[in-house]
């Protein structure tokens, strides 16, 4: 019996179904990330689990209990809001102890729990301050601390890093991962950033238009995407996905001469740059991006005039002498391609 179970969960606004029958099981101690483009319903789904948004259909079970109709206050879940939602008129200590005070927990116990959480989050010297005297990063920790103190059954995070600057985001991401390792708490984490998904998750749930596209571990999604959407959502830079009709030569280049009509996907790290004349494909360099450890080469392949041809991105970990305008050849690493039919579904490659 899994810890958290969603069965056929639905949400309707008028005639429109924004969440379309979600089935999902989450094990105890798992770190699950809901990821997807804006409007895919990930936050809505999280809020439905939290009880802040009503569930129109289906059921949610937590640790054997049906919580579908329970109010938020009784679900034993803690949420870290995107805006942190700290109580502006209370000190950090009062913010973090609020839930315990409502539950009439003994004062000494409250003191001990809050102190412990404050230590973990480096908030001890801020306990008497009010939120307006804190920086963004500090406020975020208080929001997390407020959740930790309650030791709930599940932690819910709603895009917690999106209001932080880039440097702080990276740092806090690592801290959240560390925290999960230490506390071992079941966590659902919503984000639109696939880097956060890849690094933090035990399992990733990719959502689009209110439905699950694929569920799996980060590397499963990376290596075996179930459809074109997931393939292009996960991985930076995006997977090269080319219409077979637009570049017939690609079939042979990837080693799938008998590939059916549809799309062929190749990840940039599997595109190998060769001198002009060599390689299965010929093209012209459009742009070179040198990032230091990685180099990205954007090449236009198969075009006979301006506006024709297909752009393919190659990635390598060595520097290049190529410039825009240079002729270049491309090879594809063997057995590294993905096939998608016209509906975007992944198709198993036929034996060559």
């Amino acid at each position, binding site marked *: 019996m899994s810890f958290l179970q969603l069965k056929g969960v639905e949400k309707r606004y008028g005639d429109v179904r924004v969440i379309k029958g979600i089935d999902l099981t989450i094990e105890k101690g798992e770190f699950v990330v809901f990821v997807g483009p804006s409007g895919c319903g990930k936050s809505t789904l999280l809020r439905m689990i939290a009880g802040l948004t009503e569930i129109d259909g289906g059921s949610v079970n937590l640790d054997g209990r049906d919580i579908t109709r329970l109010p938020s206050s009784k679900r034993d879940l*803690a949420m870290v809001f995107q805006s942190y939602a700290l*109580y502006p008129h209370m000190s950090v200590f009062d913010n973090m102890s609020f*839930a315990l005070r*409502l*539950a009439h927990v003994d004062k000494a116990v409250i003191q001990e729990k809050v102190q412990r959480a404050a230590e973990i989050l480096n908030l001890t010297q801020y306990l008497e301050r009010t939120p307006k005297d804190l920086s963004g990063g500090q406020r975020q920790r208080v929001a997390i601390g*407020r959740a930790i103190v309650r030791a709930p059954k599940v932690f819910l995070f709603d895009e917690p890093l999106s209001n932080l600057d880039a440097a702080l985001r990276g740092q806090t991401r690592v801290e959240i991962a560390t925290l999960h390792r230490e506390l071992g708490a079941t966590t659902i984490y919503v984000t639109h950033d696939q880097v956060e998904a890849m690094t933090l998750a035990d399992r990733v749930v990719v959502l689009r238009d209110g439905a699950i596209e694929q569920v799996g571990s980060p590397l499963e999604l990376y290596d075996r995407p179930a459809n074109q959407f997931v393939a292009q959502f996960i991985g930076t830079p995006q997977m090269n996905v080319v219409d077979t009709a637009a570049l017939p030569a690609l079939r042979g280049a990837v080693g799938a001469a008998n590939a059916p009509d549809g799309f062929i996907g190749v990840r940039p790290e599997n595109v190998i740059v060769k001198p002009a004349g060599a390689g299965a494909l010929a093209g012209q360099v459009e742009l070179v991006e040198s990032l230091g450890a990685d180099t990205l080469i954007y090449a236009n392949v198969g075009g006979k005039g301006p506006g024709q041809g297909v752009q393919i991105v190659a990635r390598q970990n060595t520097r290049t002498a190529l410039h825009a305008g240079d002729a270049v050849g491309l090879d594809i690493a063997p057995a590294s391609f993905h096939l998608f039919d016209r509906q975007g579904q992944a198709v198993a490659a036929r034996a060559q």
Partner: protein
Amino acid sequence: MKHLFLVIRTVSAWGLTLLLVFPLIWLLLTAFKTELQAIAVPPQLFFTPTLDNFAEVQVRSDYLLFAKNSIITSVLSTLLGLAIAAPAAYSMAFFRTRWTRDVLMWMLSTKMMPAVGALLPIYVMAQSAGMLDTLTGLTIVFTLSNLPIMVWMLYSGFKDIPPDILEAARMDGASIWGEFVHVIRPLAMGPLASTGLLCLVLSWNEAFWSLNLSSAKAGTLAVLIASYSSPEGLFWAKLSAASLLAIAPIVVVGWFSQKQLVQGLTFGAVK
């Protein structure tokens, strides 16, 4: 060059300001003069101040009675107004329906009707109910007069409370009552105070209804001052003293309620 502009700006700003508030400054000075000094020609800027006028004002025209009336009607109408307006504003801010906006607009529109339009019916009704020249009558009229503005200002203030704080409280285990007690009530104090302050100012200065519905018994300070319009003998210094006593508290309160004033009187149309 920039320095020159600064000097010009400072001088003109101060000059114009002093010119504008000169009548008030003059009022302040005259209140402490003797009657003869008050009408002296040319006007005296320097003199030995005296407090006689303030005493005489009380003796001659029972200042304290009118002051008491002003205080009572302002305070009571403010409290009554808050009691009626706060629940309505709370409901509109937190339990919004598709009618909310229309109801709010309608409430504002009642304030836009000129008072003179309601003068006669109110006068006639007050007369038949025996409410003319009573504190009750005045308080009721003040309350109704200021109600739309109070609802509007409280609504704005309540709307400023971020809704996700309430959700956080819910997640932390608060019931609806708990949300109200621990989050809404503390955060509503600010809007309540500033709205109350504005209402106090508006009621205190209210002249239209005071002049028409009250006189010797329930008259407010506005009425008292009006009675100085043509008494016998020299009276400028006393008028100044009486006026000073009447307007000073509110001018000071007004200094503190500038922001609320802009919000309230323009119905929020100017940010």
